[in-house]
């Protein structure tokens, strides 16, 4: 099932990183850039399939989810988006931008105790991106960005299901620090392109744009001119 050759003419670019690493801002700016330049581009984000959303929110609300079902419901969501959007659009010659990809599942689910080998096989149907940008920040920086405003943390986001701490902020710290370790361990294995995410937004963005231009021949992705 794993495609060793790429059965499509499009390009897949994913961003990964901790909550608060600024990756969503960066991928949004990439999207705007490519759109305004007139390229065929499609954006997709983690956990956004309408079909499975109902189950996900029910599970989260009623706290029914266990590590295994949490993992599977996200895999279901991903498969739905992959089969119906990501892969068809790659085949149609689009540049597909993904805000979080399978590595998010590898990191979070492994922290929840799921077997890494099981997870990697579970997502074997998905191609690896042409470029995976990893927005790297020290743990304290990302925690600071998220916790500064003392937001209402969601139950699973804070890792409260793990029962490590009853305090959501403390639990969030512990959870994020483990996710951080998982990401660090994946950089080499999955050939992440590391971006120093402590710099200013526009500095990061110009580096990202430069890297994309270097690695992808964008000329093939231009929309035909409207007459």
């Amino acid at each position, binding site marked *: 099932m794993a495609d060793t050759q790429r059965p499509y003419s499009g390009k897949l670019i994913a961003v990964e990183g901790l909550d608060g690493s600024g990756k969503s801002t960066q991928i949004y700016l990439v999207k705007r850039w490519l759109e305004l330049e007139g390229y065929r581009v499609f954006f997709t984000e983690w956990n956004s399939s309408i*079909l499975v959303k109902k189950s996900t929110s029910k599970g989260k609300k009623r706290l029914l989810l*266990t590590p*295994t*079902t949490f993992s*599977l419901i996200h895999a279901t969501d991903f*498969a*739905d988006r992959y089969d119906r959007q990501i892969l068809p659009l790659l085949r149609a010659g689009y540049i597909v931008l993904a805000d979080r990809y399978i590595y998010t599942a590898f990191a979070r689910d492994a922290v929840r*105790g799921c077997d890494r080998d099981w997870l990697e*096989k579970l997502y074997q149907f998905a191609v690896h991106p042409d470029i995976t940008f990893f927005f790297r920040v020290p743990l304290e920086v990302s925690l600071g960005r998220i916790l500064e405003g003392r937001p209402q943390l969601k139950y699973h986001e804070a890792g409260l299901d793990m029962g490590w701490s009853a305090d959501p902020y403390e639990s969030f710290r512990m959870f994020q620090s483990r996710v951080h370790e998982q990401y660090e361990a994946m950089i080499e294995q999955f050939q992440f392109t590391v971006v120093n995410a402590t710099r200013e937004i526009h500095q990061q963005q110009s580096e990202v744009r430069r890297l994309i231009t270097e690695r992808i021949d964008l000329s093939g992705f231009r929309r035909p001119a409207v007459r």
Partner: protein
Amino acid sequence: MPLIEKQFFGRRPPEITDSKFAGRLFVIEGADGSGRSTQILLLSQWLESEGFAVQHMGLRRSTLVADELEDAKQGNVLTHTTMSLFYATDFFDQQVHDLVPALRAGLIVLADRYVYTLMARDIVRGTDRGWTRNLYSPALVPDAVFYFRVGARQLVERNVQKNATLDYWESGMDLGLSRDMFDSFIKYQRLLAAEFAAMHAEFGFQVINANQRIERIQRELRRRIGKLLGIHAASA
């Protein structure tokens, strides 16, 4: 019943910390119309009369996704991979919330289909065997699996008698084997039977000839289950 350390097909899932159970899990597998539910009903009566507490499980019965799965089935809008994962979610939700507590409490759980049907359906639809085995590797290995074998022609007979129609999914219409539903049903059930046949040895199925009369099948099941539970089977 003594506590037994139950095995998983692969590695133990993180949410189940202790898998020593007093309960037992018996699985009935077989196509629609092979007589599974009739036999399960009779088995339950017998077990309860023998003083055993019984609980049932089946596919698409989880609190988490059963309704959504039903919707998806009606709409026929999900791809095979998505459907597989949805079913797996349903299964593992039941495993942790229904099956494991029942086994811990010492109940006899009778499963009307189990992961084998889900795996067979996936494989017939072109899913990689290794992928689907991995998917279900955190599932509990049952104490016994009884596979009801019925010929495809006889299945048609029974399904038509029961519902006066063939079910879209049980006919494998999504596979495009044939535009003719009868034709598709026969082809699909044969593909499934072949996949089940390939699983017999791997998973140690006990094959039951379900072309026989209800009473005879029941007697056979009671004899086999009775032996496993250390009780004598009264006649059906």
